[in-house]
């Protein structure tokens, strides 16, 4: 067996896909429904356990279970919207209270996943912690299946979201809802249904991303505790504004974190490996202190103009055409 690209790079890309999908979900729920979602990484863990259940109990393969994770995660998102977010907003909760409520939701979901894992272990005597699903993966032409599928899923979702937000009425209404909920409602937009759709996506995307995690890494009900730092780092880097910034932020964080740490482990020593997510943390703190608006808020137009001006001046000086 041979590898077309190094396993390190392949793992880094898979990780970046996972983080980027979660970052998109978190950005969606904040920018459209104005709810800061702390439980986003735990939605990913829900995906891990849905696919675990599909494989072990229903004999569904690893990648076919993606479909069930998408639906299952979405349903969880909708349930959370109806049971938690909507009552809170009806009561006129502040953003602070919504934030703490999702924090409570995060703890609750982690406890629930632990209870589920315990239940499976006690009842069916199967291993539900510290497992990997790598054996269910395939290789195609020297590439790991998880790399191909995760890239495919990530770009399909990104393109689908792009089309939804630019071509359909629902997507444009969602954008309007994010800009000004009162005005959107005045224009006859059904905000309740749109929020429900947003929360469906906010639950479905991380759960789908969760399927890829156990293929490469050891999984527990508590993996979200460490993923959450990377996810928030990429959201902050992106600027919590649009899905494209979140995707770029996720890719930057995911790739840097994995590649830099394995490079440093080779130079300094393997003791540095557990500190992996500190890279994400440092990038996040740097973003917060240097450009708090994130990539979205950077003056891209000015920068491009400046670079163009430099080229023009060079062309003029050297009398090029």
């Amino acid at each position, binding site marked *: 067996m041979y590898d077309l690209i190094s396993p390190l790079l392949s793992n880094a890309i898979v990780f970046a896909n996972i983080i980027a999908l979660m970052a998109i979900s978190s950005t969606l729920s904040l920018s459209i429904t104005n709810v800061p979602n702390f439980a986003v990484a735990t939605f990913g863990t829900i995906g891990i356990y849905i696919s675990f259940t599909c494989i072990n109990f229903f004999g569904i393969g690893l990648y076919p279970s993606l479909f069930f994770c998408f639906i299952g995660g979405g349903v969880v998102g909708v349930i959370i919207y109806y049971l*938690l977010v909507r009552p809170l907003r009806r009561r006129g909760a502040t953003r602070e209270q919504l934030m703490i409520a999702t924090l409570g939701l995060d*703890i609750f979901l982690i406890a629930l996943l632990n209870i589920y894992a315990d*239940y499976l272990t006690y009842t069916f005597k199967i291993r539900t912690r510290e497992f990997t699903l790598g054996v269910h993966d395939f290789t195609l032409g020297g590439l790991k299946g998880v790399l191909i599928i995760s890239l495919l899923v990530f770009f399909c979702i990104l393109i689908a979201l792009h089309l939804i937000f630019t071509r359909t009425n629902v997507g444009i209404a969602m954008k309007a809802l994010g800009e000004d909920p009162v005005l959107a409602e005045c224009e006859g937009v059904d905000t309740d249904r749109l929020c429900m759709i947003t929360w469906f996506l906010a639950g479905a995307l991380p759960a789908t991303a969760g399927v890829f995690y156990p293929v490469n890494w050891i999984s527990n009900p508590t993996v979200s505790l460490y993923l959450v730092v990377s996810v928030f780092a990429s959201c902050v880097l992106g600027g919590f504004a649009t899905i494209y910034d979140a995707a770029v932020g996720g890719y930057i964080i995911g790739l840097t974190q994995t590649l830099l740490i394995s490079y440093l482990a080779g130079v300094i020593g393997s003791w540095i490996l557990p500190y992996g997510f500190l890279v994400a943390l440092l990038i996040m703190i740097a973003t917060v202190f240097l450009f708090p608006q994130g990539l979205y808020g950077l003056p891209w137009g000015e920068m491009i103009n400046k670079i163009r001006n430099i080229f023009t001046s060079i062309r003029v000086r050297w009398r090029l055409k």
Partner: protein
Amino acid sequence: MMVPGLDFLVTLIIYILIFLIVTLSYNMAYGYTGVPDFGRAMAAGAGGFLCGYLPGRLMAFVLGIQGDYIENSISIVGKVNAFLGDNPLMSIALLMLTLLLAALAGAALGLLASLPMLRGLRLFYLGVTLLAIQIGFNTIAYYWKPLIGGPLGIPVPDPFRWLTHYSLLGIPPASMRLVGVIIASGIVLLIVGYYCISVGKSPLGRLLKAVRDDEKGAEALGRDTRKLYVKVMTVSYAFTGVAGALFAYYGGYVVGLQFDKVGWTFWPVATVIVGGLANYKGTIIGTAALITLRRLILFYKSDLEFILPFSPVWLEDFILGIVLMLVLIYRPQGILPEKPEIPLSREEIEEIKEKRR
């Protein structure tokens, strides 16, 4: 089914005393000033890890004990404890010194934690940043071996050992140590409680509430809100640091994951919200209720194990999440709602002015 006995009660009292320090100081930051401080576990960790790092090494240096501290920590701490057991004055001095240093360590972290606020971060960004910094801090403490022995942890010298030579009011000498813990945390709690309650009643407390309700308005009236944020965070982190040090002395052992975000950030958040913001009575009631609940779950753990199809450890987190969500949906003002500040009438103000002259 067992009935909770005296042991349970003593542990409960110690937990309530120590956590009251945390929740009262947390109430000052979140309840009064409105800082969504999700990195509070960092302060408790600073105190606790300091207890694992400093007193043992200090005493080993004083007593001239040789050898690598991390490798031989158990034997070195044993020797130190034997020495401390015979020297009450030395023990008290060590305890006071470490509590002071824990307060300083907490204050330093509080300064660090108020930096993002100086950059203009509020609400979600601030909460996320502090939470991420706290996770990073705890991970370093857990994996970095020279600090407190990495994943294995490290024993803490016992400054209450000398009490076991005495007996008071018929308490067996072996339990006198816990009496010492109760007295020490009680004294700290008195100081912290007096400070927090009097801040709440003073003009400073009203200013903090004003900043929480309308930051721009307070700034427009000439108040330096940045300075206030720094002060509040520093003081309240310092108090929490002392609580962490007391907890480490009580437990006698420190591990990097002991001061985790659920136990030392989210439970205080839940307590303050359940009790009612900016309200010391509510905080006291909330702390007593929630800590009793947690201790009861732990106490009945072995009984629950037979009934439940899962490990009862998760019940604690499960209940925490449910409590947070339900309270926010159904009673967001808490058990005891915050009382509105009724301003003095014009005549009363004039009267006070006349008296001053």
